[in-house]
């Protein structure tokens, strides 16, 4: 019949009027990311053994770190002194967390990195240590 499609379309839009919307009110409601989401790293300074594996594996060379000898003379090895990730070039590829033998660097589900200045994208040890929300539960998969 002529005009059948018009009626069909009108019926469809009228039905959609009552349906629940598919959009999120994003900044108010934070998005729940799936576990295994690759977000901003959380760093545990006390776990780090300064093995430099993350620096070596990083494909974009965005991690820089330095260590110092352990102040306790009875213990061998180094402890971490500075640990910086440059989020201008970090691609959140998850390789640093996979390679880390002590799980000192792990992924979180946080992803908001917008800043007013590019300088603020250099995140240091303290910032990465304080980034302790929504930490990914399983890291060695």
């Amino acid at each position: 019949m002529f005009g059948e499609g018009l009626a069909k379309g009108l019926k469809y839009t009228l039905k959609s009027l009552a349906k629940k919307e598919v959009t999120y009110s994003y900044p108010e409601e934070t998005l729940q990311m799936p576990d295994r989401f690759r977000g901003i790293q959380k760093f545990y300074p006390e776990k780090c053994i300064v093995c430099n594996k993350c620096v070596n594996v990083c494909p974009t060379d965005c991690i820089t770190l330095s260590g110092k000898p352990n102040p306790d003379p009875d213990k061998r090895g180094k402890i971490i002194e500075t640990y910086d990730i440059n989020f201008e070039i970090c691609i959140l590829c998850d390789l640093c967390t996979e390679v880390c033998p002590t799980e000192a660097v792990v992924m979180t589900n946080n992803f908001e990195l917008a800043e007013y200045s590019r300088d603020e994208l250099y995140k240091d040890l303290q910032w990465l240590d304080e980034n302790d929300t929504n930490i990914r539960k399983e890291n060695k998969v």
Partner: protein
Amino acid sequence: MHELLMSPPSWLHALIFFVAGAVLLAIVLGFVTYAILADRKVIGYMQLRIGPNRVGGRFGLLQTVADVLKLLMKEDTIPEKADKSLYVIAPAIAFIPAFAVLAVIPFSAHLQFADIGVGLLYYMSVSGITTIGILTGSWASNNKYALIGGMRAVAQMISYEIPLVMSVIGIILMTGSLNLVDIVMEQQQLAFFIMQPLGFIIFIISGIAELSRTPFDLPEAESELVAGYHTEYSGFRWAFFMLSEYVYMFGMAALTTVLFLGGWLPIPGLGFIPGVIWFSLKFMLVVFFLVWLRATFPRLRADQLMEFAWKVLLPAALANIFITAILKELI
């Protein structure tokens, strides 16, 4: 209101009518503000979105107010090569008829601003003047997109005005009057959308085309024409074009209510509800229908547009006139 219209003129009357007109203008502006919001909200819900929800609470109640304030603060640009005087008066030519047609609409049995014997003819003829405003604005902008958009708008509006006028002749034949109050009173038994179904459909279609709303929004087809006839306009003058568009929506919805839905007359048995409420309920139903269509249909193709007006709507409207005349003779 009626005695006031019939009494001899004086300065006091001029003052009263000025105030009444200002009140109507305020109501119309309020309608436009919330019609735009309702447009966006309803379309949003139909597309499974929320729509405006930032300014003015969860429902975005101040969104349009904010938009208008932004428009008023914008720079008022006039292109260097434009015809300045025409460019400046075009928005006024487009807007004034849009408001002037509201004078004859009877909002209830007693609330009417002018009781003209040829009220329907007045509406149809005055609303045609807006076309000149659009053409003037598009020509004066000296811009190819504006001119093409303006030409399209004018061609469409003139073509669809004919079936629009033809479709109401059936009503005029049945009422024997062009007065809108008489037309409403004629519908006490049965509203005209039941007695004139063909005329009603033609009126709605060509009315939407007159408003240049979807699916007849070719004059503003942004994918082809940038913005249509108001490409070069900005700020306050652009707001006037948009305002006239939405005031016409008010006018057309009110006219549909009066002509086909029985105006302020209640549904039998519910006479205790005042006429103005009935009028606004029917009016809002028409406005919702317009928004609903906009959320549903795609735009018509430019070559189908003219054919549809001249080859489908006009013969159907003429047939409606003849059928009405024959039935009136027989019964």
